[in-house]
């Protein structure tokens, strides 16, 4: 019997995608017993959801600093569970939480995290084999995970969640552990842009260094408005201060998977593509025919955005109104 522990996450008061994807990954690896840890206020419903999603056992933390998202205690709690149930594999996600919790949990258990896995399977010897991008996405590595336990984090949105089965049942228990916070959150400052969130948008209009300045993003806002989408950006545009860093799409920014991604004045560096290559249709507008973005786009227009975009917007107005 192989046991898995999924370090689950809550998102806006509900069971987060990371949890569903983690459980699905454990099932792909044929784990016969899947335990899930989740932390947050009022998580009874989420715990039940985790069971319907495939968990056999859920450990909850419903109060204290871990429930408020303090990393130190999430690690203390997950370490305690790992010591208690001795899983063969521990699965987390490369989210803002997982980036901190997963590596430190692994080190504390005397092993090392295999980060950013996109797919996983077992080989003939039952070893866990993962594929993960390296060199910003220019090279994929296949790695045999031979640590004990195996600790991996998944790249968000790379594994499909399973459907819910309401007939499943399992144990739900609150965990007790000793709190020890050394890095404390003093204040959170939200900088949410209005309208549809970048990650949920069905259409994303993204701009890069080729836009030349912040003003151009007004046209992108207009375009996103017509298409009912959100505006994103490359790191270069964020670093230049044209848009806030929350607009950044890519390896170290947001991962989006819209139906339509329109990249304007973006060269298509692998680190940018890491955040948008799941888009169903990618459209590129770039004045350099040799730009890498054209190798990854379904439709392309070679041209100066200042000429292409106004006409594109005009035509869209005609089609959509």
């Amino acid at each position, binding site marked *: 019997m192989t046991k898995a522990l999924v370090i689950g996450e809550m998102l806006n008061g509900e069971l987060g995608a990371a949890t569903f994807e983690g459980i699905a990954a454990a099932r792909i690896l044929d784990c016969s017993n899947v335990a899930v840890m989740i932390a947050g206020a009022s998580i009874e419903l989420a715990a039940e959801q985790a069971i319907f999603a495939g968990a056999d056992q859920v450990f909850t933390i419903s109060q204290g600093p871990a429930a408020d998202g303090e990393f130190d205690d999430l690690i203390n709690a997950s370490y305690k569970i790992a010591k208690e149930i001795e899983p063969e594999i521990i699965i987390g996600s490369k989210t803002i939480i997982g980036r901190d919790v997963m590596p430190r949990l692994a080190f504390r258990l005397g092993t*090392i995290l295999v*980060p950013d896995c996109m797919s996983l399977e077992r080989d003939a010897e039952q070893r866990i084999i993962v594929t993960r991008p390296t060199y910003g996405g*220019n090279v994929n590595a296949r790695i045999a995970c031979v640590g004990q336990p195996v600790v991996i984090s998944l790249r968000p949105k790379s594994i499909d969640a399973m459907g819910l089965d309401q007939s499943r049942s399992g144990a739900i228990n609150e965990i007790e552990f000793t709190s020890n916070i050394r890095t404390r959150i*003093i204040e959170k400052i*939200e900088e949410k842009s209005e309208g549809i969130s970048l990650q949920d948008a069905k259409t994303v209009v993204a701009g890069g260094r080729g836009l030349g300045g912040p003003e151009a993003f007004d046209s992108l806002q207009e375009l996103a408005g017509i298409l009912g989408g959100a505006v994103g950006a490359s790191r270069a545009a964020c670093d230049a201060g044209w848009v806030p860093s929350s607009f950044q799409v890519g390896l170290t920014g947001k991962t989006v998977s819209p139906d339509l991604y329109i990249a304007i004045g973006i060269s298509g560096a692998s680190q940018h593509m890491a955040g948008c290559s799941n888009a169903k249709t990618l459209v590129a507008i770039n004045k350099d025919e040799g730009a890498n973005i054209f190798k990854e786009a379904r439709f392309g227009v070679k041209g100066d955005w200042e000429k292409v975009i106004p006409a594109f917007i005009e*035509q869209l107005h005609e089609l959509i109104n």
Partner: protein
Amino acid sequence: MTLHIVVTAKQVVDPETPTSAFLIENNKVTTSTSFAPVINGYDEQAVEAALRIKEALGDVVITVLSCGSSFALDVIKKPLAMGADNLILLQDNAFDNLIDPTLVIRALTSAIQKIGDVDLVISGRQASDWDNALVPMGIAELLDWPVATIARKIDVIGNTVKVERVLPDGYEIVETTLPAVITVSNELGSPRYPNMRGIMGARKIQPTIWEINDLGIEYQSTEIAMELISLEKPIKSIETELIQGEDEADAGRKLALRLREERII
């Protein structure tokens, strides 16, 4: 009292190298020699963060620490030209092409212990070769020091460090006590360019070199948790349709029509 900051810095393949120039040979990623290595971008920002602390506090010593099998001296000396005080290279063939970074983490941790009076370690959030984001976390766990990651601003006030951490939609302020490990992100701002005085000064500083035997680490290769099976370039199999028009504006209009035709909009 002097604040001693260690900045960890890795020499990496230039991430701006075009995709086509990445080569895979004997399960190792290389580029042709026409692409010079660089210091990992986030590590230059870590140096910048340390220099800003030095400007704010005055009595600060900055030691740059790098681990590898071979170094391009003019590249790895750049932090000195920017204003760091010392450079220690952990140089040994044992560090060549490691997939599992455990040994590098042990070596860097031992070096920090050997230096002795370190108050703060500043690292990049991840190295642009393997994008692991593991090494600083490992150092922190081995030293049993607190961590704050993805910083865009660091303030040291006595024994306390205040860090602004970048979040997906905003930021948060976290606080911890020294000694601590902090990783920085690009939101910190551009690293400064070395000036002439810095470049001349750096020429005179000889790096200290420690080999693995100088570090007293106990390490068995059986501790490895990752074994490389293969490296592959991802296959992109998309056919791009370039929309043509009488001019650029016309192509823009045709793009809208084509997207409607395909029922994408």
